[in-house]
């Protein structure tokens, strides 16, 4: 297990850049286990086992569903730009990057638990969780860049689907995280899988908050 994770982080052998078969099983396992570990840590705020369990289920869902929703348009854009021959290599990169995000999130779980145990406020816990998620996502970009380097060397047009993937992935992830909230669990609220009125729009809520309507 450790050796597999190490190969994934280092982009070696079955996880190396290239067009070989995508190791979907290993990547999915890393995504589910890594996401669940970080979810457990996030849900540990307030020491409520039920919330921790919900968050452990929701974080892999967040990572997996956002990836699944963006792959079709990623394929379409690659095809339109005449890059379909490289699609397997690009997909390997995207999926390896997502698995790396999950593994890095798992490695940050002790940091989250430590902050929760040291008496950080709810707002502090949300901020720490958000900052660490951004950090793990940046780590994923590291892997994506490693996979895209040989592709870009051959055809600079690969830059477009890569940028489109990033923009769409973040756009979808923010909304999905909004729908799947709470991950931390606000004090005084009952643990729940989803909030009441979960199906609202994060961007509209943000605009309303900023414009004060």
């Amino acid at each position, binding site marked *: 297990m450790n050796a597999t994770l190490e190969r994934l982080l280092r982009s070696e*052998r079955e996880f190396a850049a290239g067009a070989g078969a995508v190791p979907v099983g290993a990547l999915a396992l890393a995504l589910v286990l890594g996401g669940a570990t970080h979810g457990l840590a996030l849900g540990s705020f307030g020491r409520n086992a039920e919330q921790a369990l919900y968050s452990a289920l929701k974080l892999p869902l967040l990572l997996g569903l956002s990836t699944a929703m963006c792959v079709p348009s990623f394929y379409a854009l690659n095809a339109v730009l005449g890059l379909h021959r490289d699609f397997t290599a690009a997909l390997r990169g995207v999926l390896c990057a997502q698995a790396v995000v999950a593994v890095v999130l798992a490695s*940050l779980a002790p940091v989250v638990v430590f902050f929760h145990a*040291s008496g950080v406020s709810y707002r502090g816990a949300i901020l720490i969780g958000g900052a660490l998620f951004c950090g793990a996502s940046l*780590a994923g970009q590291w892997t994506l860049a490693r996979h895209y380097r040989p592709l870009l060397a051959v055809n600079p047009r690969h830059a477009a689907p890569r940028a489109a993937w990033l923009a769409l992935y973040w756009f979808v992830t923010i909304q999905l995280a909004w729908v799947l909230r709470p991950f931390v669990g606000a004090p005084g609220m009952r643990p729940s899988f989803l909030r009441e009125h979960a199906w609202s729009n994060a961007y509209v809520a943000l605009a309303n908050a900023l414009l004060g309507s």
Partner: protein
Amino acid sequence: MLGLWTAADKLLRGKWMSREDLRVGRLEVRTGVLLAVGATGGALYGAAMGLFGVMRPAHATWKQVLADAGKVPLLFLLTLAVAFPSLYAFSALADSKLRFLETLKLLLVAIAVNLVLLASFAPVTAFFTMSTTSYSFMVLLNCVFFALSGAISLAVLSRALHAVYEPPASNSTASSSAAPAKLAHDDDKRLHSREPSRSARPRRVFYAWFAIYGLVGSQMGWILRPFIGAPGLEFQLFRERQGSFFEAFFEALAKFLVGR
């Protein structure tokens, strides 16, 4: 005792982190030695720091000396214990030559250097503690010594990380163990001709380590406080656990900005 002195001297002279060894991902030092040197250095500085608790007019107590002798090494080592999984993940992600144990040793070397440097400031701290009654001055002085020793140990760490990413002297053509799967194109050689920038990787690892260790270390310092012991307050081993270093910092900053 003499063994510890010799070990601390070797540590400061960089005997355990030769460039040749780092280039092949090796550190010829035992973890136990680093822990012993670091813990002793931290305990010495902690004792000097806690002297203020003995010298203050009200609630004078030796307990602050004993508490700080334990708390200063713990501050660094517990921070490492919490942060190490993620520090290692970022290192592996950057394809570092250092494996699990070697990464731990490198971080312990940096921490031990920091604590030994702090110990070298202990006589100065003790002297000022005995010659001043200003709590604010002692807080500032300790901050300066922590910052100085921290900056030097970070420079040591940065230099070591750059050496780790240099090609081995004896075998500069050594290739990665990674064997990338074949790409769809015919011109594979051209595809792999652009190696990732080797100088960027140690910098990225260093910044990631600095951010994570700094984040956890700040909060660890917050929960292990008090270190100096404010005048007028009775001795406490730990203050009540609430809030965070960052919340307290921004609260203080906001108060300062609105002039309260």
